[in-house]
């Protein structure tokens, strides 16, 4: 199975939308293992793009390229070009610390700091030298993450005391407190119950007007519910016994789910494998 040609994936964003993130022939290696090969992808501003695909297909790995989290893994190596607002962000000359202020991330497992709810929100602002009013920032961020009403009376309590769903929304609040342009979400609902999941999904709809969102999800219903575009990744076994991921198809979400061009996509979204 060959990787898709550049033209097929770029054509997914044909309209004159401005592109927030762009991947050009991106490959990621872990040591000598090629984990994801030759991904071309355009992510337009103020849209929600979902990455779906079976385990080991490299969807999280590609997500982590957009805020250079792979830099923290010593054996990981990223090839190709990644552009953010038209500027190259891969390579040694770009400071990942500054990039991550503009490209926020929410993780699979809620990971609030063992600090108060208030300090969880102000942490990012403090280290980035925020000059404004911190009380206002905390309220604005918590309102933005639809958490304010639940926690406004216990801002000094530990963030670890919240329920899983509340913790995850706290992490979203923490991410939007530093006013990023993009929010990357790595399976943000996989550790949450259905009600909390719905809350986070509704939140994503609200956040779309301000932020570009990229979400990795195992849940195809979730991808179809929340996203404007969907990228389907697949994995093939390599000679070394590992798995190599590649981008199969990238299109508007309704096209991926109702009329996919590739047979693999059709099989996956109809639940025949994965």
């Amino acid at each position, binding site marked *: 199975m060959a990787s898709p040609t550049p033209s097929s994936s770029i054509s997914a964003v044909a309209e004159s939308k401005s592109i927030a993130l762009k991947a050009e022939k991106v490959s990621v290696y872990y040591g000598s293992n090629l984990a994801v090969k030759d991904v071309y992808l355009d992510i337009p501003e103020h849209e929600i793009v979902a990455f779906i695909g079976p385990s080991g297909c490299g969807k999280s790995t590609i997500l982590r390229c957009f805020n250079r989290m792979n830099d*923290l893994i010593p054996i990981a190596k990223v090839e190709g070009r990644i552009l953010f607002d038209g500027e190259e962000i891969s390579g040694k000359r770009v400071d990942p610390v500054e990039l991550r202020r503009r490209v926020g991330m929410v993780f699979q497992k809620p990971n609030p700091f063992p600090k108060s709810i208030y300090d969880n929100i102000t942490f990012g602002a403090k280290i980035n030298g925020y000059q404004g009013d911190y009380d206002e920032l905390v309220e604005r961020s918590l309102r933005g993450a639809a958490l304010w009403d639940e926690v406004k009376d216990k801002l000094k309590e530990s963030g670890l005391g919240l329920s899983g769903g509340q913790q995850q929304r706290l992490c979203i609040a923490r991410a939007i407190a530093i006013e990023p342009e993009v929010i990357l979400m790595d399976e943000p609902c996989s550790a949450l119950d259905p009600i909390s999941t719905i809350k986070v999904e509704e939140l994503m709809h609200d956040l779309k007007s301000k932020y570009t969102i990229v979400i990795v999800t195992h849940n195809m219903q979730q991808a179809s519910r929340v996203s404007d575009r969907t990228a389907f990744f697949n994995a093939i076994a390599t000679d070394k016994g590992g798995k190599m991921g590649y981008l199969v198809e990238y299109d508007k979400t309704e096209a991926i789910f109702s009329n996919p061009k590739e047979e693999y996509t059709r099989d996956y979204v109809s639940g025949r494998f994965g």
Partner: protein
Amino acid sequence: MTADVTGDIAPGSWNPKRDRAKMVQIIVKIIFGAFAAISIFTTIGILGTLIFETIAFFQEVSIIRFLTETRWTPLFASKQFGIFVLISATVMIAVISVLVALPLGLLSAVCLSEYATPRVRKILKPILEILAGVPTVVYGYFALLTVTPFLQTFLPNLQGFNALSAGLVLGVMITPLVASLSEDALYSVPRSLKDGAYALGATKRETVVSVILPAAVSGIVSSLILAISRAVGETMIVTLAAGANPTLGFNPFVPVMTMTAFIVQITAGDAPHGTTAYKTLFAVGMTLFLMTFALNIFSFWFVRRFREKYD
């Protein structure tokens, strides 16, 4: 085929013979219990002796004298039993050693767990462990014969026996303990927490200072308290390097006598069995025990109070 073979035997008709196994189980339980009991009885025995002899001591010397007198002269004709003379020396040396071991140990731990490449780590860790394996008597001689003469080159009023070099060398001795236990605490901070900080645009230093160290604080404090207990109870270095001159106060330049050094002096044969001086030994031992016991209780409480639970 198989159906025929099993078909002849009714279910449940095969009774396993497990009497021997059950008996062995009971015997093993008794043996293990006996060994566990030995360590418990030993502790009770030591504690009992300490308490018994301490009570005997306080029948001869009032607890008021013990706590308020300002000189420690149990072997002189004019006996005085001011325990704070010994406690002040012990505390002073322990404080000096912690002032050395806390920065050295904690910074090595941060360096090892967060900054060092695997190669550097492979070299640094064994060196720290060698430091922990040096016999304390060697440290004592090092303090007396190397550190003190060196310090005297720029601290001319430093005496030959003094609390300063004993404390400094003791600090080096407990550094590996602080470093190793603190590193464990830092290492157990979940990866996801560090990722969370980095994803907010934190640098490595900001992540270490604002997230990793606070998250590991309970482990770091308990490592420190363990190190203090070790410093308070350490004997050889202070006996060799700090002198045997009971002095009340916190002057690190003069010879002092710690509680442990006093115990060495008495057990080396100065006091016959049953005398007041002999009983003094147990009163001092009891004080020492109470100090380390209080530290351990505090550490226990602190860890329970401040440990963060991640699932």
